[in-house]
């Protein structure tokens, strides 16, 4: 541990490399000028280890959340029901619709013209009073 800093010692102690008291004393001896500070910090590490113990969720909660998440995942990952049209077929549909619209409009114009023409002829053939 030669050349190590106080930060190195704290990490080594926390990670359990120097968990026993003898090793802690060795580390303290390495930094006689910081002995007081290091003693306090190593003591704090021991306290933190006691207070911040791992906790576990309640088994019922854990199981229920698992089931809910898997159900939600099924819902999300279910393939959507959409009709997939190929681009070629789609283009054909658009062109067909356009032609259909044009034919309808043209037929309407022709029908109107014929009706007007018929009406005009009838009015010309009618005997004048």
């Amino acid at each position, binding site marked *: 541990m030669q050349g190590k800093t*106080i*930060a*190195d010692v*704290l*990490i080594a102690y*926390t*990670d359990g490399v120097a968990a026993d008291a003898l090793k802690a004393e060795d580390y303290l001896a390495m930094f006689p000028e910081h002995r007081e500070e290091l003693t*306090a*910090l190593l003591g*704090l*590490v021991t*306290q*933190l*280890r*006691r*207070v*911040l*113990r*791992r*906790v*576990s*969720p*309640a088994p019922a*909660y*854990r199981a229920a*959340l*698992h089931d*809910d*998440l*898997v*159900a*939600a*995942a*099924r819902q*999300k*990952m279910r393939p959507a029901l959409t009709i997939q049209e190929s681009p070629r077929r789609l283009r054909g549909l658009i062109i067909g619709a356009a032609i259909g619209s044009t034919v309808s409009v043209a037929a309407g114009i022709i029908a109107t013209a014929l009706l007007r023409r018929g009406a005009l002829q009838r009015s010309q053939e009618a005997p004048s009073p």
Partner: protein
Amino acid sequence: MTMAEDEAALVARAKEDPEAFGKLYELHVERIYNYAYYRTGNVHDAEDLTSRTFYRALRSIDRYQDQGVPFSAWLYRIAHNLVANWHRDRSRRKVVILDELIAASEGHANPESIAELNADGRFLYEMIRRLQPDRQQLLLLKFSEGLSNAEIGQIMGRSEGAIKSLYHRTLITLRNEILRERNKRVTQQDAEDA
């Protein structure tokens, strides 16, 4: 196949397979719950935030990209953001006191709950909660999860060296806060006794 490759394969499957997502949940639920529990101080909010973390993960897993860091780092980031929102919403409502948090955690079956700490333990926990969020996160990952500096660095997006010095500074800050608070309480007690 390494553990990282196993995890990467499981994450890839979880994008399309609900059961694989369930396995990912099982692998990580304890650590996320643990993190949420110590950051909120009570079982009810820890459960709520854990659920929300995994629902958010499910919603976004399609966009998750493996960048060489553990999947848990991504989950911790989601949990961290949700906890930050939780604190923000709570601070708008009122100041939270530790006794209230302890009361909220009582009545739940949790053998290692904060409520079971002795007075010194509660005092230390109260001091931890006054630290900046990133320092609280560091202590939780170090003590509750037992992670190395390299692993913590991956989760917090910092180098191993940065974690080492942050840890040192955190311990010094915590010790100073403890001394300051103890002195403050002694002074208050003396004033009441006088």
